């Protein structure tokens, strides 16, 4: 009787042991598979055939409504410092010439003062509110919304309200402060610092698929400013300026435009320019190897355009080392 009990207990232990071993093996296998999947999703993806090297804004088009109104390819879509909303006008032949053929659709000032607009391949214009010296024309509830001017009818309407991690605090009057477009993937990237304050950095870069009009990936907990996508042989990268430091960082993008992996430091702008504390408020790729950075001070407070000192910097890509080197600075 006692032997039978011992035998039963021994069998039960062996059974439990077997379950443990299987459990551990399954967990290990799941871990390995998970790691492989994670690694694939977060590592750089080599540039897809058909995507050219360099900047990715080659397809940006003049809106159809503007062409019908007689504007040509050189027409300027402006959200300048003093006029509220979006305007279109003929490119002046000389600097300082009075603007000609200025047009503003009645809906173009509905969102108050706007930040730099970007066009897509069809000529639709995307812009986000950007307060100048007050929030009277730019109420906080509008500031995490991207607006779209339809290429055919020229009417501006809300395109997407981006979610925000925290309500707008009194010490940060900004929401979306950077936009860029990628022709390869028909993607819009929006940098928002809505909800960030002195203690909490809760900014998000949103990747919006313009085919679906939905956010399909995002990079969290970084307050960022100027944005630009650049194609290297090694893959796509989204470059962005930080708002709290004079630094430019980047993050890998997949060939579908999705944000992949962890961001990395690219270069510091500390000491550059007359003031030495410029932040990269705009990033544009001009040629296959040139990055143009517009720097200015940013301290999370409002500032009149007339008060802002901006300096332009030119950097060249070193493909061998996958780094950017400053060439020169010019006002």
């Amino acid at each position: 009787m006692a032997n039978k009990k011992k035998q039963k207990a021994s069998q039960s232990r062996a059974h439990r042991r077997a379950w443990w071993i299987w459990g551990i093996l399954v967990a290990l296998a799941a871990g390995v598979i998970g790691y492989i999947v994670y690694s694939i999703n977060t590592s750089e993806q080599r540039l897809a055939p058909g995507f050219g090297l360099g900047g990715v804004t080659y397809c940006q088009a003049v809106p159809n409504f503007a062409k019908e109104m007689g504007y040509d390819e050189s027409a300027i879509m402006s959200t300048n410092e003093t006029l509220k909303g979006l305007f279109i006008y003929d490119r002046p032949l000389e600097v300082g010439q009075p603007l000609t053929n200025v047009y503003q659709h009645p809906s173009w000032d509905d969102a108050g003062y706007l930040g730099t607009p970007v066009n897509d391949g069809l000529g639709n214009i995307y812009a986000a509110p950007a307060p100048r010296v007050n929030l009277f024309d730019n109420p906080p509830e509008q500031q995490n919304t991207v607006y779209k001017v339809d290429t055919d009818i020229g009417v501006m309407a809300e395109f997407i309200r981006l979610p925000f991690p925290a309500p707008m605090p009194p010490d940060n009057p900004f929401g979306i402060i950077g936009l860029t477009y990628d022709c390869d993937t028909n993607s819009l990237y929006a940098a928002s610092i809505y909800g960030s304050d002195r203690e909490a950095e809760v900014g998000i870069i949103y990747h919006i698929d313009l085919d679906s009009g939905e956010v399909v990936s995002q990079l969290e907990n970084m307050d960022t400013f100027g944005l630009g996508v650049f194609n290297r042989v090694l893959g796509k990268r989204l470059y962005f300026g930080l708002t709290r430091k004079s630094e430019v960082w980047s993050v890998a993008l997949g060939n579908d435009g999705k944000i992949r992996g962890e961001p990395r430091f690219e270069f510091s702008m500390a000491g550059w320019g007359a003031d030495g504390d410029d932040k990269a408020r705009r990033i544009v790729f001009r040629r296959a190897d040139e990055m143009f950075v517009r720097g200015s001070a940013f301290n999370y407070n409002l500032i009149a355009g007339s008060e802002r000192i901006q300096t332009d910097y030119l950097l060249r890509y070193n493909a061998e080392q996958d780094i950017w080197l400053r060439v020169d600075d010019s006002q």
Partner: protein
Amino acid sequence: MNQRVIRILFSTTIIILITVSCATPLGESSSTPTPLGAVVPRATLNPEQYPLPALKAQATLVSTILRQPIPIQLMVGLDSERAQAQEIAALDPRFQGDLWDASSGAPLRNEIFGVYPMRESDITEATSQCHQSACYRVEMYNYARNLTTVGFVSIDDGTLLSVTKMPDTQPDVPTYLVDLAVQIASKSPEVAAALGYSPDSEDAVMANTKTALNLTRCQRSRHLCVAPTFVTGERALWAIVDLTDGVLVGVRWTDVGDPGGPAVTERSLQDEVVTQLYCDQTTPLARGDWSMDFILTSSDGLRISSVLFKDRAVLESAKLVDWHVSYSATEAFGYSDAIGCPIFSQAAVVAFQGPTVEDLVVSGEAVGFVLEQEFWGEQWPLPCSYYYEQRFEFYNDGRFRVVAGNVGRGCGTNGTYRPVLRLAFAGENSFAAWTGAAWESWLTEGWQSQSESEPTADGYQYRLADSTGAGFYIEPGRGQFSDGGRGDNAYIYATLDHPDLDEGDTDMITIGPCCNVNYEQGPERFLNDEPIEGANLVLWYVAQIENDGTPGQQYCWAESALDRGVYVAKEYPCYAGPMFVPISGP
């Protein structure tokens, strides 16, 4: 058993280690936190009263040089070749391009900072001959324009080969200016207060207290600045010295072992000190029979609160909500400016320094004190940049005045400034206006233009009093306050202070548009015909001040003028705001 004990001990140790590591944030030091620093209020040295002999000697030298045909302070003690290079550059018209003011022809302050043999990296097509011959690089600094001019000189040919101009750039500073900066820092009370003793030149070279000159920038003044740094133990005291004006800008402590910290500059120093001392915390102030708290807000300027006179509550709070600026030449052109903290705020015109408290002197006698705060645009006094002031005047006899000031310059000479003052009174009061014959109480919320009624013989136009009759007469500005004011032409609003509704108690985002020319300046949104007799009241006061840039009549205006070879701001301020006069001893 032993194994069990070991296991328990091991587990306990791990738990203790985890607990301890969780309770101690990474990077936290056991030493006391590094103190912050101080900002010195902006000032230009009085030419009659230089604080250092070296500054007086320098001023005399500059004055002499500005009278010379070529206003360049040359370097002395150079060897013959360098002296020759300096002379060749200084006499060449191409090198002299920025020596004088373009419009007046008045001389600017220029100085040769260095003459160096040309480096290989300096050689360009224009200076290619310098591969074979002796060439020098002559560096000149223009104090007025914050401009560096570099001349490349061939000694063999006796010619200036090329000239390069670098705006907003300073060359390496000559040794005598380094010494001057160390002197200015060493003799300043702010450095002595921070170090706990007055350092002198000998202290600066003692083994345990080293000094080193750090590079820095004055992004706001656009002046030549350097930072003598006093190292004591693990901390370094940066003393930013403005060599253009010969003054200390401020002091800032840093940890010696923190190379990754942001650079200490005029802007970073001012922003951090103002934010931490005046935006993050309320400061109590008691002087004479008055006491109050004050704090810098995100967008409502300096806010005073809990104001008492002889222990009697007078004001819950007072602040300046908006500055509405409109220009008559263009319809609806203007700005609604908010004033407040320099970083992380909704303000566009910000505080570079904290408030000051000074005696209020009338006819040579101190009759009270004034709490004053200034706010600047980064480019003031250039066009379309602004400089605002808030003044709270408290008199020993119980009177007080809340003042909004403007020092231009704005975008034109056809501007109207409308500061929106908000005063929440303590206790329950009734509001009345003088009809010309009697005081008429306002039964419900309302507004009135100052021009709609006449003041009493004593100049009082409104009255705010409690049920016992105690309170204040209100005397709007009509140019009677001896501060250059030309009259307020104000709108006055009385609204109910709801205990359960925020109608401006907390920081307000912009309350109104820039360019309304009537009473619709923002406070009207709180007018709901609510009864206000014997109630908690808020008084809104919106003065309307027209600026003037006409020579001889300037008002709310500022201009750049040359003083001792550098540009300084010439100020023509305007002030507006009501005086509150006690009805009876409160």
